[in-house]
């Protein structure tokens, strides 16, 4: 059972990775965004992929549902973010404590980041919510 679960999440992560890498401008046209700021662009898709991948985790999805948010809606919301905005959200990843079991820490960090965005924690200042 566990193995099936793992296989499924690997598949999910892979499919998200691939959809993330699809470019909007076809042929060999160079995008407006690349002209504007070549540095942020490539980072943006990676950041978005990170966020979306974490959103696909079962436990995060369960948390979303418990908080009254449709997981599909949450993914749409991330997709609507610009590269710059996605960078802001994901930039905190770089400051994750290194050493030890890095993978696990990064994962916890990601979940914290997400829970923060969704409003059940308040770790990062940029995730302000309003009334």
């Amino acid at each position, binding site marked *: 059972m566990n193995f099936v679960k793992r296989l499924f999440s690997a598949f999910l992560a892979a499919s998200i990775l691939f959809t993330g890498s699809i470019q909007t401008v076809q042929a060999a*046209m160079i995008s407006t965004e690349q002209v504007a700021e070549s540095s942020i662009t490539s980072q943006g898709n990676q950041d978005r992929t990170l966020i979306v991948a974490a959103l696909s985790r079962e436990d995060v999805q369960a948390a979303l549902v418990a908080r009254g948010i449709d997981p599909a809606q949450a993914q749409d919301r991330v997709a609507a973010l610009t590269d710059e905005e996605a960078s802001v959200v994901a930039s905190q990843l770089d400051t994750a404590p290194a050493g030890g079991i890095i993978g696990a820490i990064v994962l916890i960090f990601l979940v914290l980041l997400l829970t923060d965005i969704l409003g059940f924690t308040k770790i990062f200042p940029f995730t302000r919510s*309003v009334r």
Partner: protein
Amino acid sequence: MILKSFILAFAFLLSACVATGVREVTQNPQFPRQHELTETPFFPQELYHCGPAALATALNAIDVKVSPDQLVPEVYIPSRKGSLQIEMLAAARRHGALAVKIEPELGAVLKEISAGNVVLVMQNLGLSWAPSWHYAVVVGYDLDKELIWLRSGTFERFEMSLSAFQRTWARSKYWAFVALKPGDLPASGGVEAVISALITYEKNAGAAKASVAYAAAAKRWPGNLVLLTGLGNSAYVTGDFTSAAAAFREATSAHPDSAVAHNNLANVQLAQGEVKAAKLSAEKALQLAGGDQKLQSQIQKTIDEINAYSIKK
């Protein structure tokens, strides 16, 4: 020493009377003394839904028919009883509006109002250490009376003194944006804010709307490489090769050393069936790319496509 601290305390007292930035606008002859956009629709907020209500007000003001209830699943986070700033911008784009963040100063708000654009602002109606965040829409002002009016919460015409507004707005670091129809541009601010709004708009709103918006901006700021690239790219996607070619020709003449302009022109020329011209443009682009490997490989792809096309023929 004591005198000094007295003077300092007195200075603080003084500054508490009129918020900073208010006197600058009330004494500035550049702004019309008063203006109010009375036609702006009003959607009274329910519960904590000030985000969806304010966004619906701003969108309906430019004839995007959407109700706060429709916006709730897009911007509202139930457990936080609120909406994130980034999502407010993203949702405006999703509904076809060009969302441009304006300069963090009262003057910019007044400029937009007098030009007919309502301004969606974020305020902290509480204190910095006990925040009460709120979204509202500025619809009018009177510099002689030092008043400002907003569609806010359940109030259709919420009146605030300019000073009180300035203080509550300052706590959000003067966060504000205008939602515009494609083809309209903000009255305040420079080309940078418009460019960053347009790039995100191109992704969310589709090429047809984007090309209209880019065309307006390229007209106001002629010869801007990013704007011309955006105009050319979006026109190309809609299949309007004539406009796309015109945009990239203007880009190559204004920026003769831009490899991107020549590369994209080559692609448009290829789409028009002008293989010879396309080849020349692409070769020129490759020359200009210099040591930039990413550009080189992108241009090589263009050349490959041109060659493949020639063989097919």
